[in-house]
């Protein structure tokens, strides 16, 4: 139990520390792929540091909701990161939240952010909130389907149990998981505001989805929201790794095993980040009304994955 708590604490700290670095790594890979000189890996940390030092300016007509949302969103993402088995599957806190709650937490963060964006009543905030909800209501069912497909095999909705089962099965490609994996990749791009659904580096307010929500935030508020966004990307990456590439997790609770799991995680995140950068570099952003089609395909793939599992048991 004590070792479990230590593992839990290590995973939490690793998430908080590594999440901005993962975003920095993706930005770095993108820069390289575009023949640009890359910013340093720790650039997101520098930006967070800068934001934390700056004065926080809030619109005059902002309600308490607007002020509390950054902390709440950050808390949601932090909890999400604690219940995903990143280093080991022995997570004492995992009992409080299963895969369904995980999707719920992500949805809660989205709703809070959208409400805050509409709170001050700017056109861009409302526009972004509307678009983000459109992406969200299509993306969440896909994520649930993917998680259910994996949960069916483990006969549990606890992420730790699911990953425990997946990590100890024989190495073979399961058709159901292959379909779920494609669906999960597609929904991850949409949920994290990456190309082809959204462009995280754009300055054009009229085209923004996720960035438009945070236009009115500044200083520490913005730091928390940006940190939460990197945590979200980290969480999605870790869910992907845990479900589709669970090997390398600590087998037991010894401190050595836990510490050895860290480089394995970093290596997998590095590969994942590189693949994300490649996908973003070769695609253009799609028209916003193509997003429902795109997420519709993801949903169909997720359903096929689940049906294959139910019908074929594979």
């Amino acid at each position: 139990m004590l070792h479990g708590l230590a593992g839990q604490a290590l995973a939490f700290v690793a998430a908080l520390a590594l999440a901005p670095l993962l975003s920095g790594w993706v930005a770095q890979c993108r820069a390289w792929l575009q023949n640009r000189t890359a910013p340093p890996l720790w650039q997101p940390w520098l930006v967070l540091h800068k934001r934390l030092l700056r004065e926080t300016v809030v619109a005059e007509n902002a309600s308490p909701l607007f002020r509390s949302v950054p902390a709440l969103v950050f808390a949601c993402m932090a909890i999400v990161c604690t219940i995903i088995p990143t280093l080991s599957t022995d997570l004492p806190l995992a009992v409080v939240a299963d895969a369904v709650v995980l999707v719920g937490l992500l949805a809660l963060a989205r709703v809070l952010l959208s409400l805050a964006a509409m709170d001050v009543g700017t056109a861009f905030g409302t526009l972004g909130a509307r678009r983000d909800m459109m992406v969200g209501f299509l993306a969440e069912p896909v994520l649930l389907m993917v998680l259910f497909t994996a949960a069916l095999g483990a006969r549990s909705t606890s992420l730790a149990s699911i990953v425990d089962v997946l990590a100890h099965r024989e190495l073979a490609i399961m058709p159901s998981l292959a379909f779920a994996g494609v669906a999960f990749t597609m929904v991850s791009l949409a949920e994290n505001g990456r190309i082809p659904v959204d462009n995280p580096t754009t300055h054009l307010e009229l085209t923004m989805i996720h960035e438009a929500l945070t236009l009115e935030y500044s200083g520490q508020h913005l730091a928390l929201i940006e940190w939460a966004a990197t945590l979200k990307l980290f969480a999605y990456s870790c869910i992907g790794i845990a479900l589709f590439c669970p090997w390398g997790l600590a087998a037991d609770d010894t401190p050595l095993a836990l510490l050895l799991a860290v480089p394995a995680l970093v290596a997998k995140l590095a590969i994942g980040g590189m693949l994300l950068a490649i996908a973003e570099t070769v695609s253009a952003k799609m028209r916003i009304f193509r997003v429902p089609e795109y997420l519709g395909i993801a949903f169909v793939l997720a359903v096929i994955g689940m049906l294959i599992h139910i019908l074929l048991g594979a």
Partner: protein
Amino acid sequence: MKPRDPSLGPDQTADALPHQLRIASGFPNARRLPGELPIHHQVVKPVQWRDAALGIARDAASVISDAAPARLIALWGSSDTRSHPLASAVFGLPDGLLWLDLPITDPDAGYPSVSDIFHFAGRMQRAVFDLIGVRAMGAADERRWLHHERNADNPSAEGYPFVKVEGAGVHEIAVGPVHAGIIEPGHFRFQVSGEKVLRLEERLGYTHKGIDARYTRLEPIEASRLAGRVSGDSTVAHAWAYCMALESAAGIDPPDRAIWLRAFLLERERVANHLGDLGAIINDAGLAFGLTQFSRLREVWLRESQALCGHRLMMDQVIPGGVAFDVDTTSLASAGKAAGALAAQVQLLRAIIDRHAGLQDRLRSTGTVTTALARRLGLTGMAGRSSGIACDLRYHLPSRPWAALSVQSACQSAGDVAARVTVRFDELLESLRLLECIAVRVPAGPHHLPVKLPQGRHCGAGAVEGWRGEVFVGLEIEVDGTQQRLVRCHSHDPSWQNWPVLEHAIIGNIVPDFPLINKSFNLSYAGHDL
């Protein structure tokens, strides 16, 4: 305030006239100004002013292939303490340009509006009122345009009265004048229903600085520097048009070498702008790869310009009487080779872009301006050629050196962002071909002649096909002994014609496509606000 009625303007279904109006037959009293381009000047009475506009507009409807369409190019006003204020208009006809001056004897009575005939004249007339205080009589829209602060003298209006769309679920998005990117200021007011744009209204004038008035306080020779700063991305075109106008007023003919070197600079400017804009258009569709590639090519290109003439944007290189720089044959030859090498790289990028399905999906059928709409609204220049309006001064009124180079004018009829990208690519490659030719054919001789302005008052005009379209400069000089001054001078940027068309190009499109559509036109704020 009523919304602008899109059905205004010449009726496209009207019976086409069997003949086309020519300056030679229709305006026999117009005086041909000295200079190579056939630009004619005439002082008219109010009734002739409107009749000319009506006749030319009727002609615009009857399209004759391979001839430049009849069109309004510019409309401005000028006032001088020593004489009546003037309203001036420049029309394009198949056999040349026609510049009409209308003396306004009674400023309170104004002058007849032609905005019901030429759609985009409305804004020019509003600018005339702002600048010289003479109203166009019978114009539907009398709001202020360039002078924002003067809106206060209309007590019924609170700020600027934007036209509002009423209806369930319709709301407004205000963008600018300060934008997120490092671009010029302008305000865009969208009326949207969901993501669909029902109406866009522009408000410009944020960079108004009084260029026309400033001209009159400068030495005519020196003022070419101001002309080169009307719109920084078209500095060569504007400076050349000004110099052409001044040379026409002075009745001098710049040497051959100067003309060829000017063309060399103009095509370099076109290449630089297309390289920059193509990258930006592709980046607005989310493909940052295109931006970095084209930015690199543009940067190398600008540095080469710096090495050739000492300025990255080639500012102040075109001066009255010739050009300010000279190059040796070796540098020219290597510049020609560099153009050829760039063409190969552009072809490579073009192949990638043409085959990128995701990108093409964004570009095609986005921001469509049909040929009929383009003709009705007077779309011009590069954007016009993307909507089937074949009009290119280099092609239709070829003078030195274009006649010797047989310029191939690009034209597409689809009128969407993809068509504008295609035309930009075609013009880019054609300019590179021209540069290769020019580099080996620049004649020897002096690159500059001293300009001596003749005594008395003289009008002069110049027109240059800049990368956006026809840049026109009309001026009048007065030389009295050693005193030289510009009585009046006006620089016209084609952005005047095309800004109103952008409002139509976005209708029915979705909000997030606006930056892409806007960038495909990339109109000048500074050149319009003057």
